[in-house]
């Protein structure tokens, strides 16, 4: 890495240097991808402190496992999978501490979402980026954890149904149902937020 400034090096070059123990190269990787990793943790946890802790834990784990990274996927994809797994573990721990709610039991059967009218008009049309993000923020916060997780894994991580099923430890059918009802609820929430203005 001596001849190339770290800011100009590619991810692959930085990963190789970090695998040799170069902490400076690893710091550059953190600087480049920290927003993406934090954003993914925040999308899943909806809590700033938890998202910070989990994203930083993901970087520590990445450093420890860096020798195992063979470049089969891109580095951002690899580190994103680490933070997703940490978030899923954290959500499972939190779930074990709580009792199951009625809403949770209705997740797969679409207890509420089944009755929602279809939203044909685009509820986010014409919104500024910041305004749209704020509205989606509010809507995502109202989804159950299972619904939100399936949305994040499918929409933001572009995972296939079978990969989501494996990550969430459920069947592909459950993933498809959860995803369908999560989207229906999201559409309805976004429409409600538009009406409320």
């Amino acid at each position, binding site marked *: 890495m001596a001849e190339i400034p770290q800011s100009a090096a590619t991810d692959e070059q930085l990963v190789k240097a970090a695998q040799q123990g170069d902490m400076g190269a690893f710091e550059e990787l953190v600087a480049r991808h920290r927003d993406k990793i934090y954003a993914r943790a925040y999308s899943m946890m909806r809590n700033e402190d938890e998202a910070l802790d989990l994203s930083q834990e993901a970087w520590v784990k990445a450093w420890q496992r860096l020798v195992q990274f063979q470049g089969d996927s891109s580095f951002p994809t690899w580190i994103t999978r680490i933070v997703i797994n940490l978030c899923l573990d954290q959500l499972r721990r939190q779930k074990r501490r709580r009792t199951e709610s009625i809403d949770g039991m209705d997740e797969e059967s679409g207890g509420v979402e089944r009755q929602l009218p279809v939203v044909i008009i685009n509820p*986010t049309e014409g919104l500024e980026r910041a305004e749209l993000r704020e509205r989606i923020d509010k809507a995502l916060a109202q989804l159950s954890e299972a619904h939100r997780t399936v949305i994040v894994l499918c929409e933001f991580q572009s995972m296939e*149904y079978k990969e989501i099923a494996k990550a969430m430890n459920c069947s592909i059918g459950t993933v498809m149902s959860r995803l369908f009802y999560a989207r229906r609820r999201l559409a309805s929430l976004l429409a409600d937020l538009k009406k409320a203005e």
Partner: protein
Amino acid sequence: MNHELELKLQAWVDGQLPVHEADAVARLIETDAAARAALTELKNTRAALAGYEDGIKVPESREFYWSKIAREIERQQPRQQPTADSWFHHFRRLLIPAGAVAALLLFGMFASRTTSQDNQPYDLSNLVADSDAFAFTDEESGTTLIWFSYPTENEFAEPDDSDIL
């Protein structure tokens, strides 16, 4: 539209419907108004979510965020991570067992010669008091060499390497 068709429509939008079922869903959209409405809702929701995470930033400075990571890495890693610079460390790890094997081979070779030539002028033996040390004696020249298969206790010996012996 029943739930099975709704899920097929969704899988079609997500590009995860098998090819042989895709045509049937495309026909359904053409003929069924409810399917078209569901499709519109799905597409609008997906479009609204696109790019959502791009606007989320770490609410801490680069230095502060990194300092916590660096501290945790150092806390969990008391020993220096092996690097390419520590070639001597790897060389020593290989040298000791290789030396022991070479000494054993030499010992075997000389022992077999001892049985066939009773009047040989030298002797190679394993010291009973220390099974990891070997002695070579040449009576003609009056030379005795002792080979230790482990490092000596001096300022170059690394206490951390005791586990490799």
